[in-house]
């Protein structure tokens, strides 16, 4: 592992973005993700890129809108309250079919909330977050390596589908250091003939726009966008299964909750309980299939979350309520301990007769 470097998750995102060819970063300081901005401020000027501290989150996302319109790879990052401010711009980017990467290193809410890790922006991320019918591709890293890998993947998916990708991380993922390999295979960026780069008097003018006052036309646009979303649901789902082959109790968890739960699953197995875990890596599209399949042998699902219970709804939808799904949660910046998750597994094993 000597070729690996120790990096904070936030720094890994920044470095991976640069590797992916992103030369434009706009942001506004907010804990616990400011390392991304600091990293970009240091690196971008040295590689001919642009780092700009915007006057607000709103301005930052609109600068992203501008660069995306010009057809270049671009990103912004923030934490929960700042993402709410970006909601307007995100919706406009969805309505204008613009690609870009947005990072949310979540903290406890609502309101100003706290600065400790949270997963309580799950609904906001997976249901869109701004107004209107749309989705973001939402990626949930569970290690510093994945913070980097999914950043690269995020840019590729954004360009492939002309839409925004969100990295939904949390304060722990952003702040922790782990060894990371930065040796990536970067695919060439696709052509963007739709971009507003000037007609050069050689083509009709391009328009980037989300306004459509004729409802029949706006409906068709929405239909087309959802056909694209259906393609993504078919092609881009990512998840990890851990000890699921014979599992009778299945944890559903992403990000830091999955890291904690892995300890609990190992501990349960050492006690003879057949526990396993499904870890969604794409939160949208949500990996329905492994849950449906698991429902055949799993007696109970436990959704482990740093929220009052948000992903649990997707788990129930995915396995179509064939097995009970319970919630193991902490909120407001608290993190469930492996002991707490283990206790939930043991309780499920007793009640469900899973042993």
């Amino acid at each position, binding site marked *: 592992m000597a070729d690996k470097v120790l990096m904070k998750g936030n720094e890994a995102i920044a470095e991976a973005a640069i590797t992916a060819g992103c030369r434009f970063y706009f942001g506004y300081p907010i804990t616990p993700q400011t390392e991304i901005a600091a990293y970009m401020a240091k690196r971008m000027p040295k590689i001919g890129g642009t780092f700009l501290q915007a006057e607000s989150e709103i301005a930052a996302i*609109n600068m992203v809108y*501008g*660069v995306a319109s*010009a057809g270049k790879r671009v990103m912004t990052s923030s934490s929960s309250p700042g993402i709410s401010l970006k909601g307007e711009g995100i919706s406009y980017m969805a309505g204008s079919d613009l690609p870009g990467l947005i990072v949310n290193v979540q903290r406890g809410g609502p309101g100003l909330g706290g600065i400790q890790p949270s997963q309580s922006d799950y609904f906001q991320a997976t249901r869109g977050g701004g107004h209107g019918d749309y989705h973001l591709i939402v990626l949930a890293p569970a290690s510093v390596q994945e913070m980097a890998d999914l950043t690269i993947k995020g840019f590729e998916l954004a360009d492939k589908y002309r839409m925004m990708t969100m990295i939904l991380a949390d304060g722990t993922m952003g702040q922790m250091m782990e060894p990371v390999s930065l040796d990536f295979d970067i695919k060439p960026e696709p052509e963007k003939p739709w971009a*507003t*780069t*000037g007609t*050069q008097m050689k083509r009709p003018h*391009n*328009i980037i726009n989300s306004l459509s006052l004729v409802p029949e036309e706006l409906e068709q646009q929405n239909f087309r966008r959802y056909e694209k979303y259906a393609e993504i649901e078919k092609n881009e789902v990512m998840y990890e299964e851990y000890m699921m082959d014979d599992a009778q109790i299945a944890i559903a968890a992403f990000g830091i909750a999955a890291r904690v739960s892995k300890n609990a699953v190992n501990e349960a197995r050492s006690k003879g309980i057949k526990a396993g875990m499904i870890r969604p890596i794409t939160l949208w599209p949500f990996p329905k299939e492994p849950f449906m399949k698991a429902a055949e042998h799993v007696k109970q699902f436990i959704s482990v979350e740093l929220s009052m219970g948000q992903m649990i709804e997707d788990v129930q939808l995915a396995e179509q309520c064939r097995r009970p799904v319970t919630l193991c949660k902490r909120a407001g910046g608290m993190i469930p301990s492996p002991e707490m998750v283990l206790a939930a597994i043991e309780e499920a094993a007793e009640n469900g007769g899973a042993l």
Partner: protein
Amino acid sequence: MIVFERPHALIDVPLHYCPGCTHGIVHRLVAEVIDELGIEGNTIGIAPVGCSVMAYDYFNCDMIEAAHGRAPAVATGVKRADPSKFVFTYQGDGDLASIGMAETVHAAARNENISIVFINNAIYGMTGGQMAPTSLPGQVTQTSPYGRDPKLCGYPIKVCEMLSQVDGAEYLERVAVNNVRNIRNAKKAIKKAFQNQLDGKGFSLVEVLSSCPTNWGLTPQNALKWIDEKMIPYYPLGVYKDRSAEEAAK
């Protein structure tokens, strides 16, 4: 001999503006300047939210429709993505001086090398005549039915005067389009603002006092008179900042 023709930068479609509205005049001035500078193929225009929201259908250059008030931030992104492009925004008073005030002031503070055409008609037109940040004291609108009372809702914002205090701004001029002489001056100012960008001088804004006969409840002629009698006394015309000229004079 051709004495009058449509500028190439303006698409030959009917505009949606009300009879007597001066948006059409300002669109034409912008298009003429784009033609004269020969920059159409390299230009990206940014439309606001407001009456000119559909300007993207009228200009022949590449166009972007921005969220309400955010055009200067979008322009910042476009310009930074490729500084060799020519980038202008076209914004109304609600867009620029109310919801987009922060974006406006900070683009000026950064001396972003962009050009802004700012239409001040002292009212929200598209939504049907509500009070604007630039509505005059005493002005009756749908949301100031007893006249704008400064004690209740403050004073109008004088954008050129305010931005002239921002070190970053390069060029600020207020013009009007209510008579031939003023229209000629308006075109000169727009051309200078655009040329400044081509010369790399930075943030240039032209405030254009415009009429809104429909929402002012006046005939087109009386609306033009209202600009002379009410608006210009409150918003004096002239150059509020010309950094390059000031530096050259030193």
